[in-house]
Structures are given as C-alpha cells and as structure tokens.
C-alpha cells in the first residue's frame, strides 16, 4: 500500500505545468501571519481551532459567572433582565458551538490523521476552509455585543441574541425580536453548521480511506472511532437545524408562515426540527470525550482497553439510537400517549450502551496498575461525574417525572453534569494528556492537581445544589427571585462554587500558558502511551511520519515498542520505496479557503440586515444591503472557483540519515 501511495498521481511523481494557473502566487511561507492564514497542516489547523475555542470557552465562562453573580442573593439588580437574557443565550450558544464542538474539532485535527497513520487529512484545503468558516460563524454570533460597547455605531444590532440557545418559535419572530441580533444568531448558527458538515465529510473520508497498511477498522483507536461516529452524526443531524433556520430566516425576512400561527404555521414544528438536530448534538458533544477517556484510561491503568469491540459498538449504537429520542425534550408539549411512551422507551434504551461503556472503563481499571497523573485524575472524575449526569438523565426519561422537572434548575444540574462533569472534564484531561505531544513540554504535575481539585470541588458545589433548587420549583432562565421561595441558600452556595470553579479553570489555563514557555522539555513518549502519535517526535514534524507505519495491533505503539527489530526493518523499506517515488509528498498551502471565508463573512453580515438601508457617516448610501451581500457572495464563489483551478499542488520532503528534511518542488527528486 505504501508503494501504491507513492506511485499514484495523487501523491506525487507528476510534473508541474510549465505556466502557472493562479491569480495569486501560491503561498509557501511556513511561519508568520501568511503561514498561519494559508496553512493546510492539520496540526496547525487543530491548534487554531483549539486556541479560538479556549478563548470562547473563557468568554462563555465569564458569561456564566455574571449569571451566577446576578443570582447570588434574592431580588438582585447586578445586571438588567435584558442583559441577563442575552447572557444565558450566549452562554449556551458559546459553550456548545464555540467551545466544546471546536475543542473536539481541534482534537480531531490534531489526532485523527496521526492515529490513522496518514500525513494529513484527505482534503487539506477543505480543512482550512472549515476552520475559517467556523470563525465567521463565531464572529456573527458575537457581533451583537458591539452594541453594548459602541452604543452609537452598532445600536441597530439590538444587543446580543436573547432568544435562548434553542430559540423557540415564535420568540424568534419579527414580532417579538425585531432587532438584528436574532438575524445574526440565525445566520451565525447556519454558518457554524456549514463548517461542521464540511469538516465532518473530510474526517469521514480521512478515517475510512487514509488508514495505514494493517490498520483495519477494528484496530482503530477508540478516539478515532468516536470521531467517525460523531462525523456521521454531524452530517446527518445538522441539516435538520439548517432547514429550521432557513424557515425562520424566511419567516423573518421574506414573509413566509412556517411558524406564524396567524398564517397557518405551527411553532411546534420548530421544536421538532430543532431537537431532531439537538439530541444527536448532545452525543456529538459527548462521544469524542468518551474517546479521549478511552485513550487515557488504558495508558494510566497500564493495560489494554477492556472490551474494545463492545465500546466501539456501544458508541455506534448511541449514534443510531440518538436519532430516535428527540421528543423527550418535548414531553410537556402534549405529544400523545403513544409517542410519549415510545420516546420514553427509546430514551431508557440509549442509557444501555452508555452504561456498557462505563462498565468497560471500570473493567479497564480493574486489576490495572493505576498511575494517578493529572490526565488520569480528570478521566476518573469524568467517569464519576458523567455517571451522575447520566442518572439524572434516566430520571428524565420517565415522562411523568420529567413533566415536573421540565424547565427547572434540575435540568440545569443534569446537563451541566454531563457537559462539564462529562465533556469538559474529558477535554481538560485530553488537553493535559496531549499538551506534551504538540508543544514538547510537560505541564507541572503539582499545579495540574491543584487545578483539578479546585475544578472538581467548585463544579460540584455549583451544580449539586441545583438538583434541590430545581425540585423545589426554581425555574431556569429566571432573572431573579423572591427571598421567601426557599432558594436563597442553594443559590448562594452555587454562586460561591462557581467562583471556585472559575479560579480552578483560571489556574488550569494559567499553568498551561506557563508550561508553554517554561515547562520541562519532554521526549516523544512521556506517558509510555499506546497509539501512533506517541511514536513520532514532540512536537510532530510537518510530515508526521518519516515512514508510514504498518499497524500490527490495536495498541499499535505498544506493539512497536516490543517488536523493535521487525518495525525498524519495515520502516526502512517504506522509506526506501517512498524516496524512490519522489519522496514524502505534502499538500501545498492556499489563500483561497481564507478568501472564500472572508467572502462568506461579508455576504452573511450584509444578508442578515438585507432590508435595512446602508448608512455611512449619518448618510444613507444604499436603500438595502443586497448589493453588499451579493458582493460577498461573488467573492466567495470566485475564491472557490480559483481554489478548484489551482489544484492540490504539492511538494516533496526528503529525509537524510539523521532525519533532516530538505524540500523539492516539481518533478525533480
């Protein structure tokens, strides 16, 4: 296969055309701004995803702290009710779409190509496009904040979106939210969806088609498996919300009646379409974290993952059943007994594969030699906390009980246990675990543990009392409450916990920044880990592997470490055959994905305010934003076309005996 790869016209041995077919010279800078803007290297794209996601994670956290501060005492007036609505809307939207999803995307990018033994994703420029399009969506969603910062210039935005993260109709109609914030929210989410679909298509092809020789599907690391399942969930679930958002957009701007009761529309349709996406979405958030934990636990229990096939099949089963449970978000809407019973049963059923996974993780720990390093602490915390969230989730599957819990703080407690105790704990474990791989430095163990305990204690203090608050009747999204409701102590406790959690998160990232500059340097495999990324230097070179590996076992790198002679011989052969076919082929950088995203930003920004006149310096310049929106669209299409014309390009890397790289272009060896 390696030989076949080297021979093909996709990966080299072709000769460059005599004359260029580009409008812009193809960028080759590896460093500096141009290097980052035009990069197609999956590791750099992953780091950009990660960096932006952490930024938004901290912004979302600040929004949460403001919400908790408002609720610290009864009848508080720390912030106005309108701002409170904007904060809880943007906290939810940010944490889901701009923090957890892109952090998962960051790890897909960083790890998947290396774990399948490839040099990049299947479509490197498309990957760069996904990143920049994601950023466009993030900018549109947050534009509304400008109207608080520049009240004169951006007054028309009407603040940040304030319709709640699931934007129930008819709250999103022009009648109730006439300002632009909702239009930005609609288009922002739409564009984030586009980014996710494009990225997922890329990862589906990468995982299915770019596997190294010997890497059968049932030898894939569990994380890669979960990335595959998640990618399928994304491409199949996002269309539902995309259509729902199109319908809202048409209702708002073109006078359709999809959710207009007066015109024969039914707002419940929004709920169905939204949750057909929204429920698979929670598995989109949690399946990759299950993957991180499945990588970390065996490494620190010093034994292979227990029940690998069962864990993989459970992940796939969760993906399937995840499409059949959406109406459990709607038990109180009066679905009818049959539908309610069916969705109750399906919801109970989906707990089974989840429980199976937890037992397998416990089976992995059982009889292992457990090493409690920081990633392991977070992973163990994940199992416990995610289980707690799972228990309250099972309680919701009983429709009569759910009718009591609906829209109360009990629900808040439930989904923060699965999203912080679950997804975030696993992400923090993953960041700590793979930090040495991508930056070549260790995070200090002591400070890592300090941040773990702060986060663990702070998290439980914040969210455990919310179970009681919810069962005592405190509704979610309430701006303030009276002192005689019996909610005072719980809220005070939760807010103090939130501050502690904030200190923990701050410590965690402050330590990361310190480690980036001053951390102790490490070798390629500081944890004695099992998967292929630990077989290459830290940080990995651009081409990942000097020789495409042959995979002999599930724990590929553990096998390599115990069969050194066999592996060395194989690698020498691979290097020789690849060099005889022109060297290591790498994809060329490109401007066009970035330009296309800029076109999209201009187009979407203007399309959101289509019917508003364009005003500059107090003068009306155009009667509508249509010409500007079209301009943006044209820039995008032109960039996409030039992108297609320039072709994948590519150059070769040649390694000498010491591993030093030289590059060559064109057909010369």
């Amino acid at each position, binding site marked *: 296969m390696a030989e076949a790869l080297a021979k093909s016209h996709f990966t080299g041995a072709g000769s460059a055309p*005599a004359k260029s077919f580009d409008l812009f010279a193809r960028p080759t800078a590896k460093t500096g701004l141009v290097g980052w803007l035009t990069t197609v290297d999956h590791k750099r794209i992953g780091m950009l995803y990660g960096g932006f996601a952490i930024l938004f994670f901290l912004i979302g956290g600040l929004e949460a702290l403001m919400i908790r501060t408002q609720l610290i005492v009864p009848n508080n007036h720390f912030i106005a009710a309108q701002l409170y609505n904007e904060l809880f809307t943007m906290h939810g939207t940010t944490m889901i779409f701009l923090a957890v999803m892109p952090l998962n995307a960051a790890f897909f990018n960083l790890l998947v190509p290396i774990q399948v033994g490839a040099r990049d994703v299947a479509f490197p420029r498309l990957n760069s496009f996904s990143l920049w399009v994601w950023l466009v969506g993030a900018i549109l969603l947050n534009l509304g904040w400008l109207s608080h910062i520049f009240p004169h210039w951006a007054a028309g935005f009407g603040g940040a979106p304030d319709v709640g993260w699931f934007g129930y109709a008819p709250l999103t109609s022009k009648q109730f939210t006439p300002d632009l914030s909702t239009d930005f929210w609609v288009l922002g989410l739409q564009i984030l969806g586009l980014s996710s679909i494009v990225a997922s298509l890329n990862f589906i092809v990468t995982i299915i088609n770019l596997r190294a020789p010997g890497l059968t599907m049932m030898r894939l690391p569990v994380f890669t498996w979960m990335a595959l399942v998640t990618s399928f969930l994304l491409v199949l679930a996002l269309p539902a919300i995309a259509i729902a958002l199109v319908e809202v957009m048409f209702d708002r701007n073109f006078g359709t009646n999809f959710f207009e009761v007066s015109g024969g529309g039914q707002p419940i349709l929004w709920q169905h*379409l939204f949750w057909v996406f929204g429920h698979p979405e929670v598995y989109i958030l949690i399946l990759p974290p299950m993957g991180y934990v499945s990588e970390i636990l065996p490494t620190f229990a010093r034994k292979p993952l227990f029940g690998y096939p069962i864990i993989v099949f459970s992940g796939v089963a969760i993906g399937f059943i995840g499409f059949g449970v959406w109406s459990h978000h709607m038990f109180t809407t009066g679905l009818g007994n049959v539908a309610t019973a069916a969705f109750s049963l399906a919801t109970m059923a989906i707990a089974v594969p989840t429980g199976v996974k937890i037992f397998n993780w416990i089976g992995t720990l059982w009889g292992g030699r457990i090493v409690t390093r920081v990633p392991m602490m977070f992973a163990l915390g994940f199992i416990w906390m995610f289980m707690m969230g799972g228990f309250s989730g099972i309680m919701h599957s009983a429709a009569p009980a759910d009718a009591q819990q609906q829209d109360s703080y009990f629900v808040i407690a439930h989904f923060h246990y699965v999203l912080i105790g679950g997804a975030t704990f696993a992400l923090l474990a993953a960041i700590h675990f793979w930090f040495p791989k991508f930056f070549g430095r260790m995070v200090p163990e002591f400070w890592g543990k300090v941040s773990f305990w702060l986060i663990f204690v702070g998290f439980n203090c914040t969210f455990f009392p919310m179970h009681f608050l919810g069962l005592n009747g405190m509704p979610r999204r309430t701006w303030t409450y009276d002192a005689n409701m019996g909610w005072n102590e719980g809220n005070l406790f939760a807010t103090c916990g939130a501050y502690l959690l904030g200190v923990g998160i701050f410590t965690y990232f402050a330590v990361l920044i310190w480690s980036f500059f001053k951390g102790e340097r490490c070798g390629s495999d500081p944890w004695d880990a099992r998967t292929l990324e630990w077989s290459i230097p830290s940080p990995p070179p651009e081409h990942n592997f000097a020789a495409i590996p042959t995979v002999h076992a599930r724990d590929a790198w553990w096998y390599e470490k115990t069969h050194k002679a066999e592996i060395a011989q194989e690698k020498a052969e691979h290097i020789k055959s690849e060099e005889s076919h022109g060297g290591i082929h790498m994809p060329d950088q490109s401007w066009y994905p970035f330009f296309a995203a800029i076109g999209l930003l201009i187009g979407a920004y203007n399309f959101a305010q289509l019917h508003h006149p364009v005003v500059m310096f107090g003068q009306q310049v155009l009667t509508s934003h249509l010409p500007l929106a079209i301009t943006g669209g044209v820039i995008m299409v032109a960039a996409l076309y030039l992108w297609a014309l320039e072709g994948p390009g590519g150059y070769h890397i040649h390694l000498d005996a010491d591993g030093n790289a030289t590059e060559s272009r064109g057909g010369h060896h």
Partner: protein
Amino acid sequence: MSSHAATGLIDHHHDHTTSTGIPNKKLLWWAFLASDCMFFGALISSHLVYRLNPPPGNAIPTQIFNIELTSFSTFILLMSSLLMALAVSAIQRGNVKSTRLMLLGTMFFGCIFLGGQVFEFTHFVEVKHMTLSNSIFGSTFFTLTGTHGTHVAIGVLLLGMMYVRTFKPAAGGGLFTNFAHLLAVCVVMGVSFIYLVPGLIEVIYGASLGDLLRHHALPFAVGAAACAALVWFARGSTVVEFGEQNAVDVESIGLYWHFVDIVWIIIFTAVYLLEYL
C-alpha cells in the same frame, strides 16, 4: 499526467491508493449526498406536515398546478440524467469531445427544467395569486421546490465549470480565457432558463413569438453573442490537460446530478401527484 492519457490503463472502479479502493472524492460526494438527503427530508416533512393541517383559506393545490407542464419538465430532467451518464462513460473511455457534448446537453436539459420552474413560479404568483406569504402551502411549496431548483442551478454551474475545465491547455496558463469562457457559459445558461425557455412555454400557450423577441431583445442579443463566443472558444485543437484521469471528477458531479433527479422524483410524487389521488 501524460502516462495516464492512453485509454484503458486506468481502473475506474478501484483506486489502489485508498484503504477501501473508493476514490476519496467519490466517498466525499457520497457522504455529502447522505447529508443532503436529510436537508430534503426536513423540507419535505415540513411540507407534508402542513399539508395535513391546512389553515382556512389555504391555496388549493389542484387548482394551482399545471400538471402537464410539470410532467414534461420532469421527463426532461430524467433524460438529462441519461446524458450525464453518457458524459461519464465518454470520459472513462478518454473521449474528451464526446464528454463536452454530453456535458452541454446535460446542462441544457437542466436549463429547460429550470425554465419550466421559472415559468411555473411566475404563473403561480401572477395568475394564480399564490405567494410565499399568502398561504402556508405557498410557503412550503416555494421553499421546497425553490431549494431543489437551487440544487439544479448549482449542478448546472458545476457542469459548466467542468465543461470549461476540459479546455485547460496542458501547457498551463490561460486563466483569463478560462474566466471569459465560464462567463459565456453562465450567460447562455442564464438567458435560456430565465428568458428563453419560459418565453417559449408562453408561446406554446398562445403568446406571440414576435412579442417575446421584442420584449426581451437585449437579453436575447447578449445570449446570442455569448452563444457565438462559446462556439469560438470551442475552436482549435490545443493539447488539453483534461483526460481519462479526470473521470472521477466527472463521475462525482454525476453522482450529485443523479441524486438531484431522484429527489425531484420524490418531490414530484409527494408534492404534485399526491394531490390528484
């Protein structure tokens, strides 16, 4: 690339560089089509849900539809799939000339379909007074069939890009010729489906051909000029880069084109024929 130019050396059904033997591009399109199924699934569901719960005063579909015309344009769209299949077959045999012809044919049939839709939309709004806003049937009908029409239009654009690409000289260069060529293709296709086809349908229903020509004299003149430009661009015999090795590209667009046709069969059944049961 020259080593692949000879016919018969490429296995079009197996790509030995990938783990599964399926070319990456083809797998990407298949996965995208799965996603696109869900887009149309959501739209068709919206339509059917509201069909079962019509509000008072909703438009009555059978009084609005012109089923003969829609059946005709459905037939044309299905026939365009035949031409698409012939284009794929031609490029797999390395026959670039025949590929170009079949691509043009597919695009033109696509434009006849689109022209039918332009006529239909105009007719519904101006004669039958059904708009996006004045009935829920209008909202779901125009959104659903409009989304499908957009898919066909994007398909025509992609085919046009592929057609222009078949002229890319092997020696490189020619970027601006390529742009001008694509522009001419877009103008010809645009004029056909916005003015020519709907106008001819009007003529069939009794309007005067002379009026049509006078009324849209400018677009028709521009379209004729663009048509002449197409003939001019297609002259000569420079050695081109495009060849049998690009079969997977044509086939990928073919997948999309056939998919959009299949979706139309479902829409035609669920939106039009269902009303006559």
